[in-house]
């Protein structure tokens, strides 16, 4: 299968909210067909950067371009066929069934009045199979657990069938079991379809394990990027999070693993 390629980048992007500039000139190129993770301390602008990339907020200067065109200039529906975003807390409508909600992801592929066509059913069924929620199709969304709900939202983004998928903290508020499960499913998606995934994650160790590429932000600026083994070192982690830590090798994945050093319970000087 031909893997889709796009050029998706930000050039000196500055963005923020009403009176506060959060992102202060970030330039980056999203690697194709890879899983990229944006990390950084609270308030460093991770989510803002993701929102600006998804055209939800307009950069006050600089540019965010997809295949050479500023994302704000691409017609929304056309953009939505290439670039999808799962917001951090989408709002659950009351009483809707899982299949209908997943089907809403088909909007950019449908005309205004058309009902579901064959390809819509195909896409919804495929998305639900990938997320393993087919048997929940006719349940009401309000009956589901948090982990199941999150899978429904991701299925909705999958039904959108975009080449690039942005996710804002897809694992927040989930138990560790579900966190790993969601990240595994996203990795399946990336491997099978070549979907370029960009996500904001809170957990640095899961980021180090699942990311092909990490972007680290600090106070609205990109301070380092690269493979997890290059970015996750004790000095870097100290720079990014202001955390004193030891980095060891994750015994399961071989990726870097951050062990924080607090003021208590420290047995010996670790060699990092």
């Amino acid at each position, binding site marked *: 299968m031909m893997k889709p390629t796009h050029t998706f980048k930000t050039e000196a992007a500055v963005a923020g*909210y*009403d009176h506060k500039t959060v992102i202060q000139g970030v330039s980056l190129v999203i690697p194709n067909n890879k899983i990229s993770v944006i990390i950084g301390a609270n308030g460093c602008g991770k989510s803002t950067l993701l*929102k600006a990339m*998804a*055209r*939800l907020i307009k950069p006050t200067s600089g540019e965010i371009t997809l295949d050479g065109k500023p994302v704000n200039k691409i017609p*929304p*529906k*056309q*953009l*939505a*066929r290439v*670039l*999808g*975003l799962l*917001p951090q*807390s*989408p*709002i659950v*409508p*009351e*009483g*809707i*069934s899982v*299949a*209908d909600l997943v089907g*809403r*992801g088909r*909007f*950019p592929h*449908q005309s*205004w*009045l058309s009902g*579901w066509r064959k390809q819509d*059913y*195909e896409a*919804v*069924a*495929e998305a*639900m*199979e990938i997320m393993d929620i*087919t048997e929940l*199709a*006719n349940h009401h969304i309000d009956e589901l657990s948090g982990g199941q709900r999150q899978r429904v939202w991701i299925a909705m983004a999958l039904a*959108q069938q975009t080449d690039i998928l*942005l996710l804002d903290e897809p694992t927040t508020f989930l138990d560790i079991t579900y966190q790993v499960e969601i990240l595994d499913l996203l990795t399946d998606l990336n491997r099978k379809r070549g979907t370029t995934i960009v996500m904001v994650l809170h957990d640095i160790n899961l980021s180090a394990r699942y990311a092909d590429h990490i972007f680290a932000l600090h106070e609205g600026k990109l301070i380092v990027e690269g493979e997890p083994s290059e970015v996750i070192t004790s000095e870097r982690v100290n720079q990014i999070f202001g955390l004193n830590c030891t980095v060891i090798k994750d015994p399961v994945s071989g990726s870097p693993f951050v062990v924080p050093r607090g003021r208590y319970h420290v047995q010996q000087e670790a060699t990092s």
Partner: protein
Amino acid sequence: MRNQSIEFIMAGRRKRRRRWSLVTGLLVMLLVILCCAMLLLGNTIYPIQDVVRALSGESIKGVSFAVNTIRLPRMLAGLFAGFAFGIAGHTFQTMLRNPLANPNVIGITSGSSAAAVFCITVLHANGAVVSAASVLAGLATVTVIYFLSRGRVFSIGRLILIGIGLQAMLDAVISYLLLVGAQQDIPAAIRWLTGSLNGSQLDELPPLMIAVMVLTPVVVVLGKHLDLLELGEQAASSLGVHTDKTRVALILSSVGMIAMATATTGPIAFVAFLSGPIAKRLVGAGFSNAIPAGLVGVNLVLGADLIGQFAFETRFPVGVITGILGAPYLVFLLIRMNRRGSL
């Protein structure tokens, strides 16, 4: 495996579609029955064949006047105003994701009423001038609310609060106007504060009928966009919805219908507020509830008007009956909100 899943999903959707069609069909049947009742019932009950003949233009002494001049305009006013209130209320509630957010609560109706009362008590205007002023005032009120609540990022909470604030101010204006107004103008003004189908005239109806016929398709066509707006600004936007344009189109269409209906019948209490939730309870989610909500609105208005006319010793205007029906639901919502901490 894939085909099985598709079949499973299709079966569920077929079932929900069937329920939608069934409920919508029943609502239409009820509507037809109520419309017939509106034409047949009155001080004198004429035989059906006479009513039909009068409607088709034959001149029959007594019957023609009662049916064509009194009952038909009353029925049509209730039909179109009920539909307008129902569909517009549903649109607001869905768009703002809040059952309290409807044109009555956020001050649009108060804007219309205040302008009408001003025209009647101060300018001593009547008829078309009052209607036009109330429509314009409704639109102006919603424009003010929208822009005040906009900031750089649209906020629903801000919109509702500003609307409630504006409503309080407009209600104060109305009370003041009624206090200083001349005695003989008060009854005409009161009609703008409680909805009533009394005295509806055929030649007053075309603006409302045109508004409903033109704007309903807009709301229906934007149904899918509305469904996505319900998921929140970010989700809708990232699925390719022009959120601002869609919202403006939906607000203008709904307010247009509400304002025209208010100009014709006065604000019929709670219809805009009750229709959406009732339709949703009956139909379920999954397919657009705009049309069912409009139909529920018609049934509420016509049903309440029939009750108001015939159930008691005294005749009550329709707004009093819908008010009695709606108030307990509002209380229920507030109690639920208090218990859950949210709606």
